[in-house]
């Protein structure tokens, strides 16, 4: 499930087969409040060979945030820009954001589902923002253990068996799971940013 384009750096880190689908965004059971700690400009890159991108976070009045991202030219990749919409919520000790791609280089995201939300766990410390994404293998194990309702669909790609993992639990059950202190164990590091 391919996510994004414009934030080549950020979204490459969140992309492809490792992405776990969710039925509902995180936090629907309690509602969203913008986290002011995210406001402003962050910089980060997904790979050592990539230049740092810019991620400008603006707080909107409707409990959403807009991210305007800019990825500099890198090798044969042209400079690009795009927009994301975020919502944030705190569940227990854990802070989450739902990320939705809304624009790419002045147009709609190319070939992507703009309704798709990607849940991320995040931490902010000393002007560093750490993003974590649901780990498909860890979530698959949780589904098999009955900790959360979901589906695991195996398929073969070029002779290699891969599993598509989806959490099918409703928002309330998802929130209950992600509220637990041990919920971060379901996530893997995706990206580091700094002011």
């Amino acid at each position, binding site marked *: 499930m391919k996510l994004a384009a414009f934030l080549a750096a950020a979204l490459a880190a969140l992309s492809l087969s490792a992405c776990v689908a969710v039925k509902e965004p995180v936090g629907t059971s309690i509602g969203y409040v913008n986290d002011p700690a995210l406001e402003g400009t962050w910089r980060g890159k997904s790979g050592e060979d990539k230049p740092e991108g*810019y991620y400008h976070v*603006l707080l909107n009045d409707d409990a959403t945030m807009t991210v305007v991202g800019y990825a500099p030219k890198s090798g044969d990749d042209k400079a690009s*820009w795009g927009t994301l919409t975020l919502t944030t919520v705190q569940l227990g000790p854990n802070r989450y954001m739902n990320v939705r791609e809304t624009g790419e280089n002045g147009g709609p995201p190319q070939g992507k589902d703009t309704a798709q939300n990607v849940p991320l766990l995040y931490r902010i410390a000393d002007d560093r923002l750490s993003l974590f994404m649901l780990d498909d293998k860890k979530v698959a194990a949780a589904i098999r253990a009955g900790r959360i309702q979901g589906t695991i669909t195996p398929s073969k790609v070029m002779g290699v068996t891969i599993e598509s993992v989806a959490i099918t639990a409703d928002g309330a059950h998802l929130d209950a799971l992600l509220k637990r202190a041990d919920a971060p164990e379901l996530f893997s590091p995706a990206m580091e940013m700094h002011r």
Partner: protein
Amino acid sequence: MTRIKYVLALAATLALTACYPPTTSHPVGTTAGLKPDPALQGTWKGVNSDGKPFYMHFLPQSDGTLSAVIVESGPKAEDWNVVTATTTTLGANHYMNARLLWTNGKPENAPAGTVPVLYRMDARGQLTFSLMDEAAVKAAIAAGKIKGTVEKGELGDATITADVKTLDAYFSTPGVTKLFASPMFTVRKVD
């Protein structure tokens, strides 16, 4: 008079006043060629009139234009804008033909034509942008120095309608810089 939103940075040069700044019905520099200025490409940072920092990202486009993505930053940042521009050099002057496309993700209803912006880069790496002074442009049109139209009323918009050859000849003269106001803002290259 076309009222547009108060926005920031380069977009502010298109919008800070209640009136739309002087425009040209043809882009400046078509006879010399409109090529994206590589010196502009990348990221610039400045401070707007509210004291808020902002970033300008210039991106070359495949159609020969530049997109400028301008975003406020820091606490209480509110606005982001997208401007499309072409650039040219006539004589010693660097010009941008700018058009405000979006404010905060919503399309702007900018009038026809483009806004000529004089830009300069100094030895310290500072980039300044100047808009045409509305009163000076109206006076030049009234004096027959350049062909154009002026809407009725004190705040009527001014449009230079000269053909491309006449326009470029006029903007190639050293004295044309007198038609431009003091720099609206200064930015520094950061990336």
